[in-house]
């Protein structure tokens, strides 16, 4: 039988040479477990001459401890090598594309409506809604546009009956009247929504589009307040100060009425967006006509106000440089996906 000392060096060499946990496990079984070499050594101790027994017993136990320690160290060495393997950059292609989850999207009209609603809400404006199938009264009469008024030509109207008692609202201004009749001044409100015009469609004309009406009614409201509010609006939309100009514009429900032009945000000296003029006609606005206030039971001597009508569809097109208005309501995923 080999001595414990020779055994120690043989086993240690085997353990150090082992390349897998399986080999280590075999060595462990061979030496340390029931019926193994160390057990054999220990079992042989009583048969030794008396004086040799203590030393042989110690040597066998020493061997057991050393093997166990060597096995532990070898296992640590193997585990560490595995981790090093995992930490190596070999075979790692950093340029492989990301694996995306599919994305959803919010409609660009909704995105802009939210931004503007938040902006105006923060300035004390209620966000209102109104019917899309409207009475002639709300859409025209109460807005100072009687029958046979030439202004009706400006807005080709879908009629729900031959006489046009019910129409599809041609502007969100129709909600002005409802708001003024329901709420008490002072009031500030915006009304985003769908509007309809009986028009032949092409890349820049749609029969259905979105607008946002705004009204402010209070004491001592002046053109100066309107200008300020419009500048805040544009700052919100374009993220920076935009020069504006007001020029006369005719809308029967305001007096004075204006067209508001914004300095073209896309160029300095003329481009296709502003038709080389450096100004973009952005929105009609004006001081609410006393007749309109009166028809809603508000005394124009005490209260005054302004109104504006923002073309949301047009603004979305401007912001995203969309070249065809028909994309907006076309439901084509290839268009919608771009706004996620």
């Amino acid at each position: 039988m080999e001595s414990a000392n020779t055994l120690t060096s043989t086993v240690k060499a085997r353990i150090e040479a082992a390349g897998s946990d399986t080999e280590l496990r075999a060595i462990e079984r061979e030496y340390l477990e029931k019926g193994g070499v160390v057990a054999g050594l220990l079992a042989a101790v009583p048969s030794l001459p008396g004086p040799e027994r203590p030393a042989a017993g110690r040597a066998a136990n020493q061997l057991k401890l050393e093997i166990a320690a060597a096995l532990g160290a070898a296992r640590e060495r193997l585990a560490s090598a595995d981790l090093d393997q995992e930490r190596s950059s070999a075979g790692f292609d950093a340029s492989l594309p990301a694996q995306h989850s599919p994305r959803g999207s919010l409609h660009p009209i909704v995105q802009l409506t939210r931004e503007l609603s938040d902006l105006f809400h923060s300035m004390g404006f209620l966000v209102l809604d109104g019917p899309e199938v409207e009475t002639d009264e709300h859409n025209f009469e109460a807005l100072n546009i009687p029958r046979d008024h030439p202004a009706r030509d400006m807005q080709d109207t879908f009629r729900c009956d031959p006489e046009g008692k019910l129409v599809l609202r041609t502007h969100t201004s129709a909600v002005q009247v409802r708001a003024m009749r329901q709420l008490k001044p002072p009031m500030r409100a915006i009304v985003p929504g769908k509007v309809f015009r009986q028009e032949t469609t092409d890349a820049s004309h749609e029969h259905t589009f979105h607008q946002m009406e705004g009204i402010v009614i209070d004491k001592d409201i002046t053109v100066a307040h309107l200008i300020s509010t419009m500048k805040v609006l544009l700052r919100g939309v374009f993220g920076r100060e935009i020069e504006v100009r007001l020029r006369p514009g005719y809308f029967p429900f305001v007096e004075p009425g204006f067209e508001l032009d914004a300095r073209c945000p896309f160029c300095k000296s003329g481009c296709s967006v502003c038709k080389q003029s450096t100004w973009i006609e952005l929105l009609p606005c004006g001081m609410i006509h006393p007749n309109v206030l009166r028809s809603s039971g508000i005394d124009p001597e005490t209260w005054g106000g302004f109104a504006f009508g923002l073309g949301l569809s047009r603004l979305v097109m401007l912001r995203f440089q969309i070249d065809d208005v028909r994309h907006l309501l076309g439901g084509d995923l290839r268009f919608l996906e771009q706004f996620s």
Partner: protein
Amino acid sequence: MHLSYRWLARHVDLSGITPQQVAADLTLSTAEVEGLTRFAPCLSDVTVGLVKTRIKHPDSDHLSVCTVDVGQSEPLQIVCGAPNVAAGQLVAVALSGTELPGGLKLKKTKIRGQESNGMICSERELGLGEEHSGIWVLPGAPHVGRPVAEALALEDWVIEIDNKSVTHRPDLWGHRGFARELAAIYGRALKPLDVSLPQAPNASAAIAVRIESAACPRYLAVAIEGVQNGRSPDWLRHLLLAVGQRPIDLLVDLSNFVMLDLGQPNHLFDRRRLSPAGILVRGANSGERMTTLDGVERALEPSDLLITSGGSAVALAGVMGGESSKVEPDTSALVLEVACFQPAGIRRTSSRLGLRSDSSARFEKHLSPTLVAEAAGHLVRTLQSIQPDARITSQVSDVGAWMDPALRVNLRPARVRAVLGAALPDSEIRSILERLGLAVEAAENSWSVAIPSIRATKDLTAEHDLIEEVGRIHRYGNIAERVLVGELTPLPRDPRQDLVRRAEDRLAGGARFHQTISYSFIGDELLDQLGLAGAEHVSVVNPVADGFSSMRRSVLPSVLGTLHGNRRHRADVRMFEFGKGYLPEERNSSGEPREVHELALVWARPKAATERPWSADLLLHMQGVVEDLFVHLGLDVGAESLGAAAVEAGAKIPSWANPGRVKRLGKAGWIAQVDPRVLRRLGLSGELASEVVGAEINVDALLAAPRRKLGYTPTPRFPGSKIDVALALPTEISAAQGVAAIERAGKGQVAQAELFDVYQGPNLTSGRKSLAWHVLLQAEGRTLDEEDGQKFLKRLRREAELLGGELRSE
């Protein structure tokens, strides 16, 4: 409408003010200028030439060879084909290098062997109208070698005005009106214009005019003789050309000139075509017809107003003259009509007939009746300035119940400042009004402002109208901005808007759906495909296209309508829309249909070749989307299965839903597979064969739905016991019945039963399916042991047998 800069300058001194400046100032103070272009720009490139000699071309019957002095050291040889070319004429010569309006670029050439160094131009070749029978012989003093535009003072600019921006300004439908604006803007005087009707010595009796309709408040007629109709003088032709009006002959041109100058339409009748009995203004008889100047025969209605003579219509009042009475080249005796018609009637007639004329456009703006005499005087005086022999030969017939609309309006200067928000001194306010031709009688706090007739018909009738006048001439750009101020109180939030916004975020961000917004109209074809053709719809009487008059009753069909296109490009299509449906059967007292706010969800993907595992069932995934959404919104709404029996018993499911695969979402709506028949009709077959599920949810019902209550229950103190169980059950037994069996077997200890497999196949007796659950047993106050599990399984085995099935595994 086009304005000529040179024409404007006939009425107001524009020296030192460029056309560009005029356009900019009109934009900021008066009306929208849509464009500014040079009139006939080639006139600056062609040269005045003097024809020195003209001989017949040796090799041609109709060509001439000319030498033309164009101010160079030697005359140039030019071959000319015009019959009227002659030595001694001043002509317009396009030299080589010049480009003419048609795009013709001239160069030296040889014509039948003869050198030609340019072209002697006709008017048409220069963009000056249609005249092309011969070359244009220039009038006036020789300025040989100078550009034609300069030599003849023809330089002009065309200002294009957006008609919509002057809808409310009857005074701005002629050059004098715009000149009045420029006079106010620049503080210059409007040049006087004599518009009085010349006296007519020895005049015969007035033409008999009778008005039978209130729609004609004023009618003036006068006879004119001694006219030689023919070509108009060049100054008149060029002004008309500049504003895009084709010159015809002197009489037509003159009539147009007066309309474009003063804004008052007028009409010239050939006297030979009128009855000596005179003129009757009346409504049309029913069934009456007439042929208008454009050669179209028109069916009339009693609301149309006619000018008649001898019983037949000679003009459709205020809209267009009649073919039968128009002036001819040989007309020398005329009747001049200048009248005023009520705008609403003109508008109705021209809209109904689709006949918009320069005349109807002006009358429907509400012209002042006072313009009638002024236009008559202006026309006669202009005619006489061209043909001094022309003269009025009848007394003036001027009839009608018209009244001068001139009025006075009170204006508080303080109110001007209060509305504009500008610190304008009284003196400035007054100056602006006076420059506009409004006379001010100032008192302490309130002024009385006289509004002249031409501005009083509609435009300036109240104080705020005058405030606008001051504001626009002062310029809105000169008003400094002021921030809105107000009391700070919390604003109520709209619950529906909040719910919609949270749902949108959840669907786009969490469920990865794309939001769409569709048209409210729904095509007849799509309605057919969806089996909705018979339903009642809100509709318009004037759709943009045939078959698009209906408005959708619900939103989901619109989204289904996009599927065919979208599935062509995308395999997985997930879309949602928040929108309105329109219900005609539920109208309010003003007749408006109820508009329902809805959420529609559609999820489509290619149809699988083999059956998918239950865990890939699209309907269940959509249900997951919807239930997760409801949880996110804090709602206690779940999907209830709707048995076939309920559908057969007439439960009102949506027309798009597959009746065999539909669930109800409480009172809020439906979730279902889309009926395969509908899919086939939508063209989703072959390569596009799809499985599609949809959900239709009423937003207001969600607002009213029960809220989910969040509460706390203590976490269990003793560990539970997890057991997987599988039951083989007859196919008609539902998963819900399986769960009920588990709960009964658990005797109150089932804390959770999570379905993890559904199987039907070879290993099972036919008519059976296998359902498997992870079950968690939990007891209050103690740890469950092996024995508890065995007891549960024993009870479950019995429950399964009661359902006609068995417990498959333990």
